[in-house]
């Protein structure tokens, strides 16, 4: 099952690359594969029992002398993250199909390949396999930005690769040290480690991926120069690989170092939260605002993860899903708006787009309102859980987090008014082209899911970690065990 979920998009990618189809057909084929992937994930969801931990396991020895195996399976939280991935990727592929990208076969094949790699990351239960998928994500992203990106794409890819690879190679060194000292690379079989250096190696990779302050230098360029659907995947899904890594590897395998460094990580996250929000408030275009808000929301998620208690972690998982959907929607919207304004989303030349474009206004408004965590929205539920969790570590963390919600309201409202309201912008054409059917079809499911989750946040929040009361021995997922109350 899990293997099928990984292999389906990879096989789809091969088919799309190999078959000499015209561009439109190749895009359609890729979209069909992406939809099949979503269906397959839904089937996995029905088979999943949220009361237990690791499930839907496939395991096959890969090379035994180092103790490496192909070992995949799902935890509750990783199933949600994988669901987020397949949905966002399907939307992205659908949008790319509609937008009719050049060299469609290569483009859609790469998107499918990326989907498979992301699902692989969320399912990997072997460190080396995790690394393989983690790096495999980088390959299509590099090409997608480098070939189909904006005018500054080459510099962007260089920066992106330098940041990401510096992190991942440190992680590789850590993986080798961890795996050889444990005698196995398997995440289920291996024990825990007390080495701070090894932990820092892992943390480096995840801090870049998230990104955590001060490792965010690549972020805004990558999100701005990518094709919009790739930005959606990058900020919505790929950044969540860091969440998975921190939870499955960092917090679980390194309880000692995590405890020692908790304050430091929380501090970085808090700085990132406030700093990202301020940058978002100052940013001058739609994509930059979304990029910096993504940075601040990821910092909030890290805050939740490293509260090291069940509330905070549950909140982090819920907020990961919510933020993934929100930021994917916003980036796709940015792409749609850019396609109406001659390629720019600069606030200086936008404005007044609500007039005559009711669908665009409604969707941007809905997403924006959810993003600023209005009570009753899924983002509010996630942030509330995170803040409640982090409160146990110190009220000041919660205060900073709450402050960030105010900042989020500021930059989101500024974004909404800059795009939709005010006088009609210089670059906004007068012909009032609203969102078309295909664009709506791509966005509606994302927004719909946000609304469903808003109505029922417990669906994710209460089903992300194996039940803690099942006993400490039942699961190795250390995060599930609440820390002793102070």
């Amino acid at each position, binding site marked *: 099952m899990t293997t099928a979920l990984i292999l389906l998009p990879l096989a789809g990618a091969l088919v799309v690359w190999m078959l000499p189809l015209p561009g439109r057909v190749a895009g359609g084929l890729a979209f069909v594969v992406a939809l099949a992937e979503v269906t397959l994930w839904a089937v996995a969801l029905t088979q999943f029992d949220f009361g237990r931990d690791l499930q839907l396991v496939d395991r096959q020895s890969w090379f035994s002398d180092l103790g490496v195996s192909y070992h995949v399976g799902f935890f509750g939280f990783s199933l949600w993250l994988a669901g987020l991935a397949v949905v966002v990727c399907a939307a992205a592929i659908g949008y790319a199909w509609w937008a009719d990208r050049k060299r469609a076969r290569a483009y859609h094949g790469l998107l499918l390949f990326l989907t498979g790699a992301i699902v692989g990351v969320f399912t990997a239960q072997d460190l080396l396999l995790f690394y393989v*998928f983690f790096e495999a994500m980088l390959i299509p992203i590099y090409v997608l930005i480098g070939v189909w990106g904006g005018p500054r*794409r*080459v510099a962007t890819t*260089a920066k992106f690769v330098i940041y990401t*690879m510096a992190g991942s*190679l440190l992680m590789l060194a850590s993986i*080798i*040290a961890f795996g050889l000292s444990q005698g196995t690379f398997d995440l289920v079989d291996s024990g825990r480690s007390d080495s701070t250096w090894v932990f820092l190696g892992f943390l480096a990779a995840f801090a870049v991926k998230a990104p955590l302050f001060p490792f965010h230098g690549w972020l805004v360029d990558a999100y701005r120069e990518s094709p919009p659907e790739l930005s959606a995947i990058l900020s919505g899904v790929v950044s969540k690989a860091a969440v998975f890594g921190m939870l499955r590897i960092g917090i679980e395998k390194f309880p000692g170092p995590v405890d020692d460094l908790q304050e430091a990580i929380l501090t970085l996250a808090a700085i990132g939260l406030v700093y990202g929000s301020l940058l978002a408030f100052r940013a001058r275009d739609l994509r930059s605002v979304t990029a910096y808000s993504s940075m601040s929301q990821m910092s909030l998620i890290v805050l939740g993860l490293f509260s090291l208690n069940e509330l905070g972690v549950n909140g982090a998982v819920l907020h990961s899903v919510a933020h993934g959907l929100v930021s994917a929607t916003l980036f796709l919207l940015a792409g749609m708006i850019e396609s109406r304004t001659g390629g720019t989303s600069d606030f200086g030349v936008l404005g007044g787009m609500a007039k005559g474009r009711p669908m665009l206004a409604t969707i941007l408004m809905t997403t924006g309102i959810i993003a600023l965590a209005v009570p009753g929205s899924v983002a509010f539920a996630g942030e509330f859980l995170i803040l409640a969790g982090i409160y146990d570590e110190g009220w000041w963390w919660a205060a900073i987090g709450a402050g960030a919600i105010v900042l989020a309201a500021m930059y989101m409202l500024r974004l909404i008014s800059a795009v939709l309201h005010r006088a009609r912008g210089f670059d906004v054409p007068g012909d009032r082209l609203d969102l078309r059917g295909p664009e709506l079809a791509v966005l509606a499911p994302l927004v719909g899911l946000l609304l469903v989750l808003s109505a029922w946040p417990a669906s994710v929040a209460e089903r992300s970690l194996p039940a803690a009361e099942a006993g400490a021995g039942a699961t190795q997922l250390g995060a599930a065990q609440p820390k002793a109350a102070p």
Partner: protein
Amino acid sequence: MIPTPQVDWLALAPTLALLGASGGALLGSVLVPAPARRGFGACIAFAGFVTAGVLAGVVFAETGSPRELLAESMTRDRLGALAAIILAGVGALSVLVSWGERRRDHAGEYYALLAAAGAGMLFFVTASNLMTLFLGLEWFSIALYILCALDTHRDTSLESGLKYLIVGSFGSAILLFGSALVYGATGELGFSEIAAAGVDDELLLAGLALIVAGLGFKASAAPFHMWTPDVYQGAPTSVTAFMSAATKVAALVLTLRILTVAFPAQEDLWTVAVAVIAVVSLAVGNLAALVQRDLKRLLAYSSVSHAGFMLIAIAANNALGGRALLYYLIPYGAMSIGAFAVVAARERELGVPATLDNLGGFGWERPFLGVAMWVFMLGFMGLPLTGGFVGKLYVLSSAYERGWTWLVIVGVVATAISLYYYLNVVRAMYMRSDTALRPVVAGGSPPRDPLLVGAVALSLAVTVGSFVLVQPLIDLARDAAESLPL
């Protein structure tokens, strides 16, 4: 009646098959009518390499514990057999790559020399005393000197041959001098007898140092690499392909053999020395490659850095290291041949040396070769989905197991630097802006060269296949490495 030694014909068979092919090709260049010479030579050389590979496979299967043959002058063991299989594979691929070379004359001699060089290498890797070591070394070196200079109508080819001759002879002389000192110190020529002599004085150490340096020349490890970029650049590309893969295999396997068999007592010295050479190679290779524009020079420096990586495995001097080296050689050989084959294809298309500048758009014009080059670059970088990743993992693991975490860090940093120039190649192929895509085509459509494409496809299959099928290859490598006292 003169007593004749017991000859183990099976052990000699791979070498003899290639010698026979060489002689046949040479005869063919006299007896066969001129138009058919090229085809005859290529067929017979290809058949020779394939036969040698099959026979080496038989030797591998039939050999249990190592046996010394012919008055202790050579060893029949699985190490030599595996190296012979790799060399034969590399040779066969080189024949395929060579076919499309528009050689006006010396076609028959070319294939004869190629087979002769192969035979010399097969002999060389089984050497078990200093005399046969030197004999084998000169045997294949002389063949290679001529091969480099074979394109007499090109100045660079002559220059390359002469440079290789002078520097290579210098290396051979150093090796010979070292052998003499070792013989002087111990009174023995055989590797295991040298170890058994139990001598440990300055004379022996000086000899050891000179032998390591002499072999370093052949493996093109820094600081003995000065000839590499010039020779690789000047030699006919198909010869470069063969040299870069095969010479490295032969030299590194023999380095491993002589150091572990003949000098186990000096282990604490030579491991450090080899580690230092490895670090210098990594530094020089990677830093110099950063500024190369000519593809063959770039790949030459890349081969210097890979020599560094493989020397790490030798320096580790443990069972994991032996396995690491023998595994690494398989994907490395394939990637090396494949990458130079792609360079050859571009050169034949343009009629000028391939540089990063005239590679523009290559990936889109020749999709298969472009993707293959992409994968080879990924493999050189050591990114997942290629055997290069597993090779690097094993190499770094062996260093870690020895307790040299610093060497792991050096390897990781070197990899990070190498990303820049490998990705430069990808960028040149795919990511030029449209204005830069103005390739200077020699005229007409590119020549069809199914054999070269086939060779690239085979290399690609090995590069990717060695990532998936790690276990069987590692088993082979372990069987081979067990013939050494690691």
